[in-house]
């Protein structure tokens, strides 16, 4: 029964195509859903100030603080909703909330410069 779902197909599925009882036969499929678009503010982390204390990791509602080997590597902007808790709880003021549109425009500029 277990098979990997193709999410692009499900939207077209009629009766009989789904699992009995509408069970979702996989776990963690919400990872494929983007909530980053909700953001009006974006957390920007200052690597210099951050000492990987993990307070923001445990305070994040959206599992968006990425940690590898005990180090905070980056922020998952696909899912981060921009609530600002991470910036608020940071004891070293290492996270700043920046206007999302401005952040995107800056990103765009950087991309242009690269090109």
């Amino acid at each position: 029964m277990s098979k990997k779902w193709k999410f692009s197909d499900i939207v077209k599925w009629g009766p009989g195509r789904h699992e009995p009882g509408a069970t979702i036969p996989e776990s963690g499929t919400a990872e494929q859903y983007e909530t980053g678009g909700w953001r009006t503010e974006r957390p920007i982390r200052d690597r210099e100030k951050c000492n990987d204390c993990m307070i923001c990791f445990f305070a994040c509602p959206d599992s968006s603080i990425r940690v590898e080997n005990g180090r905070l590597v980056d922020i998952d902007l696909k899912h981060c909703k921009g609530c600002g808790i991470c910036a608020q709880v940071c004891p070293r003021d290492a996270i700043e909330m920046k206007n999302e549109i401005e952040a995107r425009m800056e990103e765009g500029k950087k991309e242009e410069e690269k090109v």
Partner: protein
Amino acid sequence: MSRKAMTGNGAIALALKQAEPDVMSAYPITPQTEIAQNYAQFVADGAVKTEYIAVESEHSAMSAAIGSAAAGARTITATSSQGFALMWEMLFIAASLRLPITMPVITRALSGPINIHCDHSDSMGGRDCGWVQLYGEDAQEGYDNAIQAFRIAEHMDVRLPVMTMIDGFIISGAIGPLEVLQDDQVKQFVGPYEPIHPLLDIDNPVTVGAFDSLGGWYFEHKVTQNMAMDKAMSVIESVGREYGQLTGREYSHFKTHMIEDADIVLVAIGSAAGNVKTMVDRLRAGGVKVGMMKVRTFRPFPHLQVAGALAGARVIGVMDRSDSFGAQGGPLFTEIRSAMFEAPRRPQTFNFIYGLGGRDIFPDDIEGAVRLLEKAAAGEEISQKRYYLNVREVSLDGQA
């Protein structure tokens, strides 16, 4: 096979014991209590491997059964009346999650006023909750249906919960003869349980009961659910045939008696079918061309087969042990009448509601109904369709 004298409840508890499910959750309610307590005793005696959850309400009985079945265990419960009503919300959810729970229902009137005796208000009230419904006439049928229920519910084309009814007190509390299978025969018939997407499979975690609202697939899921109900129709028949090979007692959706040349057919469900059969034989001896149908499968309702079997009838009298307030008649009546609507020769249909709250039904009541149907068969115009039998100050002639 051996022969025993048992109460209806005892027979059903025995059937459940022989099938030996993994989990039973139950809460006592008259007249089902004997099943809950007999089974608890089997567990206490180590006679079954079943884990028993003595829940704090029927709502929790069905909720725990849902959890257990979704986890991947063969699961049962049993109830009556108010307990059935309290489970109401969860009955729909058990069916929509496609969990093959089986549940004997010992039918009893619904409050109010409170009444502990038999009628079909409880199970008939739940006729659209998505469960397969099988009605038994006596303890033997209760026993046989309880065993077949596992096979029907767990069939891969069906995967729907199944409830099997016997009449409270009249059957549940009365001692009668019972043909009993050997334990291993039952186990072999029921077979091993194969869960689908069990919660306990740690290699394949799943989400059961997801939110599926506007923009989702709720409609597709409900259509799928009804497709399973359609498929249950033939599964009930094939399981009934196989059970017949094992026991000599073959089951289908209904049974008929003296129907071939009958102008008048009485349709009944539950224990009163026996009384009706006796009266059919008696009236036949007096020259009345009367026959009967005893309905076993109420959900899915076998409307095509019913219409075929009743095609020769000129007048049909449907006997309901529950009322449907504000409807054209009782639940069985509306099904039968609807099934006959497209018959090549549409019969006249009449509804006789009887036995609410355990009220007795007497031979005279049935004979009175047949005499009325005879008049209709003879061409007399009778506009009134719904009648109540054995109600104080209400006679068949004077009912409005």
